[in-house]
């Protein structure tokens, strides 16, 4: 009985010392994972993931509080990269989320009243203009987050899909005549 107590106490003492020492010796500083995740996210800052921007979403993923399939602008490719980074299986985009083709916002030049509301809404400073003057959206800065659409009091902002051009054209996924189209998608008869 006493032996038992003695042995366990000794072991506990040693373990406690080791752990306490270890704990104090390296507190975790920063989380490089968040940066890595954030680097994959498209920085559209649209909030569709349910977080107020890409970085908060990245932090949530790093903490294990959010799934990796919540970002529609990132799409399948983004999910795949996240899965690869985190060592989990990729999964389809979360329920109720759809990946839209890339588009940019356009301000109707004749309607804009220069209220600056859209400027304040734009997370990436893509809108140029001063108050009471017409505002202009710089197309290649615009991430297509649509955040400026709602605030506009005269509904002059619309989204336009970026058309495919010769220099942004991509080779298509080759279509196999007899097999299901997408490789990672399962056989059609599986369910």
């Amino acid at each position, binding site marked *: 009985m006493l032996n*038992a107590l003695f042995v366990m106490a000794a*072991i506990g003492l040693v*373990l406690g010392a*080791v752990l306490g020492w*270890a704990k104090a010796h*390296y507190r975790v500083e920063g989380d490089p994972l968040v940066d890595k995740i954030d680097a994959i996210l498209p920085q559209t800052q649209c909030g569709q993931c349910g977080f107020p921007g890409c970085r908060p979403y990245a932090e949530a993923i790093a903490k294990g509080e959010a799934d990796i399939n919540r970002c529609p602008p990132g799409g399948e490719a983004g999910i795949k990269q996240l899965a690869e980074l985190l*060592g989990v299986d990729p999964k389809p985009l979360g329920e109720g989320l759809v990946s839209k083709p890339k588009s940019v916002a356009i301000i109707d030049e004749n309607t804009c009243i220069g209220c600056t509301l859209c400027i304040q809404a734009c997370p990436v400073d893509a809108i140029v203009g001063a108050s009471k003057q017409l505002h202009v959206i710089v197309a290649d800065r615009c991430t297509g987050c649509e955040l400026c659409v709602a605030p506009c009091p005269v509904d002059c902002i619309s989204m336009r899909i970026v058309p495919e051009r010769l220099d942004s054209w991509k080779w298509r996924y080759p279509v196999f005549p007899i097999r299901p189209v997408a*490789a990672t998608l399962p056989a059609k008869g*599986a369910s």
Partner: protein
Amino acid sequence: MDHYLYILIGTVFVNNIVMAKILGLCPFMGVSRKLEAAIGMSAATTFVLTLGAGLSYLVDHYLLGPDLTYLRTLSFIVVIASIVGFTEMFIKKTSPVLFRVLGIYLPLITTNCAVLGIPLLNVQEQHDFVESLLYGLGGALGFSLVLVLFAALRERLEAADVPKPFQGVSIAMVTASLMSLAFMGFSGLIK
């Protein structure tokens, strides 16, 4: 000498800790999605397992003796946790590079049941100190071998058209099954 060789071959191939003894599955399934991770995990486990086998023997033999056998489980797990904690600290101090590679795997080892299983098996088999140490090393090498092979195999599986219900863990299990079928080929080589 032969005897020691047989212990090694036996634990690595014939009675492989994962394939034949079915221990250590959590890391086997969890850390086999990427080859690099598998290699890191293997190295970390090998270290802890070997050390754990030796230290547990000492604790069992010199601290517990025949009268305190009921403290075996408790003391072994405490010993292992201390080794993990200590290793973590030690590596962090001496080789930050190694720490970056192994760091994230070390804490996972505490819940690898092979790490406790091997010391317990050592007791069951009445191994002496050197045998215990070799048994630990062999078990760890066996674990590392199959983990790394499995990881490479899984990387290939990622691209296969696995039927939908089988995708993910299920096909990994089937693969583990066929792997252990293959490893049965070693059965009978050494008792």
